[in-house]
């Protein structure tokens, strides 16, 4: 991977990029290991929540309601944040957002900034713009640091460097931090990062962050993280600049009680991530930065909002669970998606952020197995949006190609839940003759007939599970009822 940012406008098509990635066995091994570990942890902490499905439903409704009244909640946020001493900026697109941030940094006279991991600033390639203006951005999240020092690109929303193993990380750190000796245990590597960054936390006076949630009711901002680098960047600098998509707003403080339960369990498989920070404007008594700016950025989100069937894409809380669950992502890793948003969420978000002018193959980067939908904490029906986008892509290219007709039939299936389930079950029956088992007894499909064949030319498709989560869940509930629970 080169140091060039992932840019959907110039990236190769998914099939081409995926083919290249499939040749990198080390990468595939690293990705499969990491996603496997997170999935196991997630399953454990989701299983222990008796009201998980109710939380998902509430999460879905909160997000849907927010999008329906986005203008109302953004203005409420703006008003409350301003009253608390924050300065609110608006940006129509990435270019405008970059210009605002670079301008603010230059007004501070800053030559360096410390950064908290933020997919939104990756999306707008902020680091490149800062560097062009003579400002050095230090990534402070361990994974982002690995990527920045290794001149690499993120491959996962939550664990951006999951494609690197310890030997690779050790080599990068040793070279870039000029360390003579360095052990290769994760502890040694984390210690090296701590020493490297501490001096920057204490010295650099300007911080740049993204946001997980903007609270309309209070004007507060919430960031969740693990390492404490976020808290350092939010607390120690004199100036803090936050860049947030307009989709990040939530109506009330109370709504966090839902999202703060859904997000960590889905993202890292923890009951709660180590740190959640909430701050509101500027603290009058000198707790934290004296100046706080927030940039509310559209960057094609209103285009998605206007598309009734695509709109649910904006409900995403960036937990990454769909990536870990996706058999395609697990094979190709994140870079093949040609965007900082990879996996199923990337397959629907990226083309829409590009208004379908680029990344047209991404809606096809899925076997429509439905695993992403089942794990999504806010119940985004990703397969449905994929089909919808395929239709749109096809409409752009012409309506009567065989592809268009087949896609239309698929669209019908996904629009009805009953039909979707029937199709899932049929899929398992129909695929049976094509499945071969690997060493671990895992089923793989090396060849698919007809239309889908193009897909299996570049990858093996994991066989559908014998029982879908949904079927398992229902059966489990039934058996619990019969046990009198």
């Amino acid at each position, binding site marked *: 991977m080169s140091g060039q940012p992932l840019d959907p406008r110039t990236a190769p098509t998914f099939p081409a990029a995926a083919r290249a990635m499939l040749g990198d066995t080390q990468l595939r091994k690293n990705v499969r290991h990491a996603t496997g570990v997170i999935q196991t942890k997630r399953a454990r902490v989701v299983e222990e929540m008796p009201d998980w499905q109710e939380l998902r439903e509430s999460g879905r409704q909160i997000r849907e309601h927010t999008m329906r009244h986005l*203008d109302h909640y953004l203005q409420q946020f703006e008003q409350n944040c301003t009253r608390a001493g924050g300065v609110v900026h608006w940006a129509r697109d990435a270019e405008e957002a970059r210009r605002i941030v670079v301008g603010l940094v230059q007004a501070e006279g800053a030559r360096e900034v410390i950064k908290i991991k933020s997919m939104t600033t990756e999306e707008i390639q902020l680091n490149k713009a800062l560097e062009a203006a003579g400002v050095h951005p230090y990534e402070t999240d361990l994974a982002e640091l690995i990527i920045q020092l290794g001149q690499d690109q993120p491959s996962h929303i939550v*664990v951006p460097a999951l494609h690197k193993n310890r030997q690779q990380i050790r080599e990068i750190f040793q070279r870039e931090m000029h360390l003579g000796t360095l052990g290769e245990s994760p502890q040694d590597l984390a210690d090296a990062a701590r020493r490297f960054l501490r001096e920057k936390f204490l010295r650099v006076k300007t911080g740049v962050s993204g946001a997980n949630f903007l609270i309309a009711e209070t004007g507060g901002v919430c960031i969740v993280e*693990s*390492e404490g680098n976020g808290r*350092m960047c939010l607390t120690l600098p004199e100036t803090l600049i936050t860049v947030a998509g307009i989709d990040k707003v939530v109506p009330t403080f109370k709504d966090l009680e839902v999202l703060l339960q859904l997000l960590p369990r889905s993202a890292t498989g923890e009951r709660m991530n*180590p740190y959640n920070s*909430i701050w*509101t404007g500027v603290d009058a008594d000198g707790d934290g930065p004296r100046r706080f700016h927030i940039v509310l950025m559209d960057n094609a989100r209103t285009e998605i909002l206007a598309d009734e069937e695509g709109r649910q894409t904006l409900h995403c809380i960036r937990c990454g669970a769909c990536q870990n669950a996706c058999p395609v992502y697990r094979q190709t890793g994140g870079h093949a998606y040609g965007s900082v948003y990879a996996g199923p969420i990337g397959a629907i978000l990226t083309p829409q952020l590009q208004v379908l002018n680029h990344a047209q193959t991404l809606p096809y980067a899925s076997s429509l197995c439905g695993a992403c939908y089942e794990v999504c904490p806010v119940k985004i029906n990703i397969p449905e949006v994929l089909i919808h986008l395929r239709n749109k892509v096809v409409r752009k290219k012409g309506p009567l190609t065989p592809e268009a007709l087949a896609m239309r039939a698929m669209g019908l299936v996904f629009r009805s839940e009953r039909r979707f389930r029937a199709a899932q079950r049929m899929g398992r029956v129909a695929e049976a003759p094509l499945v071969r088992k690997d060493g671990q007894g895992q089923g793989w499909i090396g060849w698919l007939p007809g239309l889908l064949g193009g897909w299996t030319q570049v990858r093996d498709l994991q066989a559908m599970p014998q029982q879908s989560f949904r079927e398992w869940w229902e059966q489990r509930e039934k058996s619990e009822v019969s046990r009198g629970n």
Partner: protein
Amino acid sequence: MATDAREAVLTRIRAATGNAPETRAVMQEWQGIRRQYRQHAARDHEGVLELLIDRLRDYDATVQRVSRDEVSAVAARLAAARGIRRMVVPEGLDPALLPAGLACETDRGLSAEELDGLDGVMTGCTLAIAETGTIVLQRVAGQGRRAISLVPDYHLCVVDEARVVETVPEAMARLQPTAALATTFFSGPSATADIEMTRIKGVHGPRFLDVLLVRDGERL
């Protein structure tokens, strides 16, 4: 220019959603959001405390149950065992709780560098959430500025039993009146799993956490 962008974005949003109902209608719709998840404790308070202890230990924190009179002596023992010599404490922390015989500096705007030169911090807390093993700190007397519980490597936290709730929704309800204060939720020591998904304790935040659960702290 900036106002243009604001108007442009808001106009696009209104065109996309095609509606602009009044605040009251929006609030009514918000109230109609389904919330059938657990909002109350299912255990008795002793059960809730045991759950918290279990969760905190799961994060490699130590937890001791003490009476208010014992805090000072136990705190001194814990700090000594960790090799702590100088600690920072927030304004408003009851002096009777401070570790006996240990140098404690009250924070009156210490710089980050000064904080970096101290070994640890001792604070109270606003509340704790048993189900997730979370402790919540706010910008109030006895808990202090966010920086003091961040820069030093060791945190000794005093949690009154009355401040422990079982679930996240109970915690948010209690925090609602002070929702605009700077608030930090922390769940165990700082951690990362960025390298091969191996959980490493302690990256930038405090690496070591001791909790004193006080059975006869002040009532809320």
